[in-house]
């Protein structure tokens, strides 16, 4: 089975909020110094989903990522988990794309790679989190779509997929090829190990430009973007933390209980 996984590099969300700063002028996030960007959490689960299918049914996993040259790192991460090859889509017209632009570029790259049975994306990105790219991509490629998948089984050339709902889940069946967005309920992604790490270090990761994938620049014209962000802001949070003390931690705990009992 041939699987293509779309991954994105994002600022590490596991940082203390004090390190999270935005530039309201440029409407961008200021990368926290000294904290390397990471693979977006849902995208890592999408790679995990692909690896589980490959474990069972054999096949090939190809990873693509739009980003700066640094995005090579997330592609390498995916290879270290079990993907076979990867490409980075890096070009000036690929910067600051909206969901349609992103889906268009991914679609062009996927058409160039060709020969796929399944395309996986994370359900949304951990940074801008528009939550649309996978669905728009399915429409562009004319593929059946299953969103928020957390269990993907292949039965008789059809996929049987569990997708998460707010208070339960749904089992759906969909023909091959298909596109799915993956949710975190799939469980922990595997840790990179031995062979994968070695392969990831050695693997050549080609960089594709707009002309390499036959992307039409007029499709990426920012003045024609479907959506535009006019402002970003961090809501004000002003709390004062009252520290409760006591002769021992147990005394402090008793004092805390006395305070809280009046509030509940």
């Amino acid at each position, binding site marked *: 089975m041939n699987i293509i996984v779309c991954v994105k590099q994002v600022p590490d969300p596991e940082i203390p*909020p004090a390190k*999270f700063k935005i530039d309201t002028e440029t409407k961008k996030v200021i990368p926290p110094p000294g904290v390397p960007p990471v693979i977006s959490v849902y995208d890592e689960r999408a790679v995990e989903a692909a690896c589980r299918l490959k474990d069972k049914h054999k096949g090939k996993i190809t990873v693509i990522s739009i980003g700066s040259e640094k995005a090579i790192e997330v592609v390498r991460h995916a290879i270290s988990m079990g993907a076979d090859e990867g490409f980075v889509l890096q070009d000036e017209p690929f910067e600051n794309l909206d969901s349609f632009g992103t889906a268009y570029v991914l679609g062009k790259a996927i058409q160039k790679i060709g020969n796929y049975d399944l395309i996986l994306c994370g359900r949304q990105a951990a940074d801008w989190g528009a939550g649309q790219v996978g669905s728009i991509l399915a429409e562009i490629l004319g593929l059946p779509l299953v969103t928020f998948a957390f269990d993907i089984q292949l039965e008789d050339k059809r996929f049987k997929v569990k997708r998460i709902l707010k208070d339960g889940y749904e089992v759906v069946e969909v023909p091959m090829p*298909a596109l799915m967005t993956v949710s975190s309920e799939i469980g922990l992604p595997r840790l990179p190990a031995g062979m994968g790490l070695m392969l990831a270090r050695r693997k050549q990761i080609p960089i594709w430009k707009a002309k390499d994938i036959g992307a039409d620049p007029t499709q990426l014209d920012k003045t024609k973007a479907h*959506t*535009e962000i006019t402002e970003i802001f961090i809501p004000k949070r002003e709390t004062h933390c009252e520290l409760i003390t006591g002769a021992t931690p147990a*005394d402090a705990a*008793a004092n805390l209980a006395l305070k809280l009992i009046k509030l509940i």
Partner: protein
Amino acid sequence: MEQYKGVLILGEIADGKLAPITSELLGIGKKLADELAEDLSVLLMGGKAGGLAKEAIAYGADKVYIAEDSLFDEYNSDAYTQLVANLCQKVLPSILLIGHTDIGCDLAPRLNGRLGGGLAMDVNELSIDHTTKLLVSTRPIFGGNAYARVISKTARPQMATVRSKVFPPAERDESKQGQVIPVEEKVDPSAIKVRVIERIREEVEGVKLEEAEVVVSGGHGIGSAKNFEMLWELARLLGGTVGATRRSCDEGWIPVTRQIGQSGKVVSPKLYFAVALSGAMSHIVGCLGSKYIVAINKDPEANIFNIAHFGIVADYKEVLPALTAKFKELLSAK
């Protein structure tokens, strides 16, 4: 672009009635439509949709589109996308509002892909810009640590999925008049590729996280699955439940369904105990709506103290048992 007019709401039906989100959408939709001096419409789908038309009109709809077909009683992504896309291409709404529900989260982005509109997801503020008359949607970015205002200059419809319980429900007016329009087009069965086999509602034991008044959450500092029992004791005593950070779930100490934060659940209890957790950005977005946050952490520099209302700087193992014991004493005296 001028041919696009009016506000269209995607109605949802639950237990044979208009779902709460639908009356909320009608409420905010009416406000937007009035500002534009345009019509408010709603689409209702399902075998018994027609019976709810009057109700939708009383809630402010000028037009109600009815797709009365039991095919729509259960959500199917392919069928819904096709029907709603066809209707939008016919009636050309300027604004399309959908609930940020199970249905909306799946349908809206795909519909947007088909229609070529401009969509903002999980919106908690909506307004019309006075000069441009464009819809301005506010949505969370970076897991809710910041917000963005989004517009669509030329793409139509301007779409938003709207978070539940943010907007007040529409006011009812029994004397309101409106038009009921049947949707005649049928869905092409060959376009239905995804087949729903079953839908399983999971019953959560005890109090639901999202509805709990007290949540006791444990971070990586808890150290083991067994130690979570201490958190459960306090939670049970106070009629609440237990949550966790992503790292605790990743360790396998507690099921991932209890994860709070960016890739987990969002809770807003009266009392949120943050135990042995540092307060990473991805976690706190899941608990900021709590009325009181209580931090217990041995690291006085931990970020959680910046957002907490009360705090104890100490090893939680020395605090929690004493805290539970004192509560027990106080509650039995009540």
